[in-house]
């Protein structure tokens, strides 16, 4: 039993190792100059992390991501909850959001760059835009599904509208909101990489695509591993926090419902 539990816990790690092994074999089989083996790429990682400038770049990326993600969550959750509880607010914002949704947020980068420059502000703004839509959508869905009876009981006991929103709707919608935040987290990482690819000034995406342009293939693949590891670690940390916050709710997805 304990052995089984151990295997279940280690399964993601085993999957990582399996993928790396497949990569190694594929690279050896193809024997292509532009496709280094997994071992070669892993060996290139310390060189990147030793470089002080690269480290500053990666930290700058993470800082932009944290600011963009944080502000997006703070703005989107109240908006989504309001939309879920009031039909007027919902029909006011819904068409606008539907129009914006399929626009790739990183594609706004060239336009935003014209106005705000290529600095932190435009990149953070793009991340903010990318994160806010899924969070709004999931908060909206979560708030819509709150049981009416609970709200009626709350109203009968004299809670004001604001109190009902923060003390009944917010906790009830929390599992759904956190699903949205998890999606938003992955999107933040993607938008971060693409925005830095477009405005090559600093950041992890900048190192990745510069290495691609200069044909330093082991650096390219090492950066892919680093960015991938960032995604997996952030997701795992978020999942741990989620489990703590909504322990009462049934575990809907124990595999991440993140997208893109």
């Amino acid at each position, binding site marked *: 039993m304990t052995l089984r539990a151990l295997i279940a816990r280690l*399964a*993601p790690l*085993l*999957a*990582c190792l*399996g*993928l790396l092994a497949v990569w190694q074999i594929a690279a050896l089989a193809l024997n*292509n100059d*532009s*496709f280094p083996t997994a071992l070669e790429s892993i060996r290139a990682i310390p060189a990147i992390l030793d470089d002080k400038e690269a480290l500053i770049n990666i930290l700058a990326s993470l800082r932009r991501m944290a600011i963009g993600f944080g502000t997006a969550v703070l703005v989107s959750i109240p908006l989504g909850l309001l939309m879920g509880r009031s*039909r007027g607010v919902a*029909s*006011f*914002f*819904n*068409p*606008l959001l*539907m*129009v*914006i*949704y*399929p*626009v*790739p947020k*990183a*594609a*706004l980068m*060239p*336009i935003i760059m*014209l*106005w705000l420059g290529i600095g932190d502000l435009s990149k953070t703004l793009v991340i903010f835009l990318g994160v806010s839509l899924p969070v709004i959508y999931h908060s909206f869905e979560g708030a819509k599904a709150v049981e009416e009876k609970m709200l009626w009981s709350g109203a009968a006991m004299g809670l004001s509208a604001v109190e009902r929103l923060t003390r009944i709707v917010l906790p009830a919608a929390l599992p759904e909101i956190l699903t949205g935040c998890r999606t938003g*987290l*992955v999107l933040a*990482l*993607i938008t971060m*990489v*693409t925005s830095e*690819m*477009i405005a090559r000034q600093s950041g992890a*995406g900048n190192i*990745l*695509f510069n290495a*691609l342009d200069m044909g330093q*293939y082991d650096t*390219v*693949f090492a950066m*892919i591993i680093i*960015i*991938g590891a960032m*995604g*997996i670690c*952030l*997701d795992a940390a978020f999942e741990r926090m989620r489990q703590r916050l909504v322990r009462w709710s049934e575990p809907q*997805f124990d*595999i*991440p*419902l*993140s*997208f*893109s």
Partner: protein
Amino acid sequence: MNGRGVTTDLLLGLIPITLLLAIWQGTVSFGLAPPTLLPPPGHVFMRMAEQLVTASFDQEILATLFRLFAGFLIAVVLGIAIGLAAAVNPTINAAVRPMVRVLAPLPKVALYPALLLLLGFGHESKITLVAADALFPILLSTYYGASTVEQKLIWSAMAAGTPPSEILFKVILPSAAPSILTGCRIGLVISCIVVFLAEMITSTDGLGHVLITAARTFQAVDMFVPLITISLLGLILNGLLQAARAYLLRGFPEV
């Protein structure tokens, strides 16, 4: 929902869009932003109408659509197949689950350089990226839908003598359909976004390439046209998917 409610909702929804356009026009008219950086909306839509009838621009749209559909369809087929298999078979589940745990939160755009090096600069690398990105929401919602099918339904079908292979297609697949279609909807939006990004990074055609070309030559008007086009494409495709959903789920209670 009565007819009047719908029209009020529609009118209410038009307010922010009109407001946005008005602010846009206002900033240009009052000289807050130079027209070279922010062209007036009328100008942009005129330019778009002009572009839409030219053969070269239609070629770009077709290239984008081809990649979008190819990637999306691969993702739908693979996602539904793997999702169902993982929900039905514990062995496959044990293999798929940790893989998905690792691969789903991976930012796939970061894989694009690797795909470029392996598959070249043509359609293949972009289609693979779109498929990889759209796959996971479809896979996860199929898995979720198929693993929450009511056990009683399966038992009844078995009691009625349905062979196991038919139970999959006659019981599990239909009852997972709402969830699968929700996943497809998310996958479609993602496909729109990713195909555009891939074309922005490296391409010789497609809407993303139009945007990048315009950005490099500081043609602000031409930068807005592909953005609005992809937004419209997303809306149209979403509408088509909604219609397909309404048709496929016509027997279901409101979903």
